[in-house]
């Protein structure tokens, strides 16, 4: 499996470390590459959109001519794991903001929903079928509304902070900032079933 990590700006090394640590103990062949230019998008089986600044990442996606191809791949069903700024890139709409980016995930997201850095926090919660996952929120967004087909994975204080829609997982928090690899393992299982599904349909 070939996993691409968007590496235009932000905490992409941390995601790579999670995937590499899973790969080291996995029977599957898992390769990880950094995406900085359009040519890096070839032959991917899954993609990770990391945390960072969404304004910067959104601009660089366009400036580096990555935007259209990436959007097309996600709409075709390429498994996608997006955290924090990544969630903002995927959101169909942003609260009180005319800007939108890839707009492939039917949710509305409020940026900087918890305020400035002094509002950053950690909490433990269940994420889908994963129990007691450490959630790290850094100048984080949350989801103010989600489309009917969107599965809600987790909420904190009645705000949605994790969703799944088709092959896209959107999280307001940072699983890559913990030593817990369960969310990345879940994502890789989705990638694996997507790969085998592609093979059976030829």
């Amino acid at each position: 499996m070939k996993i691409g990590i968007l590496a235009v700006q932000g905490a992409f090394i941390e995601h790579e470390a999670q995937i590499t640590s899973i790969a080291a103990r996995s029977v599957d062949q898992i390769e990880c590459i950094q995406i900085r230019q359009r040519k890096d998008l070839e032959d991917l089986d899954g993609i990770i959109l990391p945390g960072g600044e969404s304004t910067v990442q959104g601009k660089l996606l366009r400036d580096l001519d990555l935007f259209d191809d990436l959007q097309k791949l996600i709409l075709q069903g390429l498994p996608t794991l997006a955290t924090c700024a990544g969630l903002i890139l995927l959101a169909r709409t942003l609260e009180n903001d005319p800007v939108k980016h890839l707009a492939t995930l039917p949710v509305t997201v409020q940026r900087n929903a918890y305020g400035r850095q002094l509002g950053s926090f950690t909490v433990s919660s269940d994420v889908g079928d994963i129990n007691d996952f450490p959630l790290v929120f850094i100048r984080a967004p949350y989801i103010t509304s989600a489309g009917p087909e969107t599965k809600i994975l987790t909420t904190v204080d009645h705000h949605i902070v994790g969703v799944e829609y088709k092959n896209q997982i959107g999280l307001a928090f940072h699983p890559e900032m913990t030593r817990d690899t369960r969310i990345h393992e879940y994502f890789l299982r989705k990638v694996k079933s997507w790969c085998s599904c592609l093979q059976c349909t030829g």
Partner: protein
Amino acid sequence: MSQTQYELNKGLAQMLKGGVIMDVTTPEQAKIAEAAGACAVMALERIPADIRAAGGVSRMSDPKMIKGIQEAVSIPVMAKCRIGHFVEAQILEAVEIDYIDESEVLSPADDIYHIDKRQFKVPFVCGARDLGEALRRINEGAAMIRTKGEPGTGDVVQAVRHMRKMNAEIRKIAALSEDELYEEAKQIQVPFDLISFVHDNGRLPVVNFAAGGVATPADAALMMQLGAEGVFVGSGIFKSGDPAKRAAAIVQAVTNYQDAKLIASLSEDLGEAMVGINPNEIKIIMEERGI
């Protein structure tokens, strides 16, 4: 500061990696910087080149001006306080700044002690010329490090020197045997546990950016190739002919710092770069402040 808060503060620096933090003096400049792709802005009344020209005592900026910049942009806003001036730091924390730069660019308020940064909830970034300075600042509670360089000169030579020195020292410590680390901790005047972390991991325990004298996309890419995790650009942008274009070019050069072809095209038609001054032409050596 609790350990959890410290981890969150180090985490914010991790989110800034691969990005460019730009000095701005007005909300308008902050908007230009954000639109050009800055991952954060540093709000200050005068950029280092002007501080150098004006002389005198240079202090924390007016909180009203900082608030104006906070309202103008959605990206993190940083601000500088004087070395050792913990009340300026308290004020910046009270206005909910995202990061405080305890900076040698301003006139030091204390010639012996740095701020006890562990007493604050808000994160701090500090300048360093070598590994000893970096680890001493981290021991005091800094959640991010940058090279000092020589601010306001448009001359990248000191930033290069500091980054090379720090990385050479890290490589040396990584190669030492365990029992040699105690002596090394004594020599560079830092706690053993921090030396031990560097030895085991081959890097600083926090994010390390380049700062001081970066003026062109090539300068920024040079610092990234030398191992910086991101870049501060101070006077280099708003002292140049076409700030918006130069800022955007530096942002792209930091992302694709190994692609010379792309950096060549980014370097075309940027207008006039800031006028540089050589270190032997300047009177105030800021890098010697706070060691």
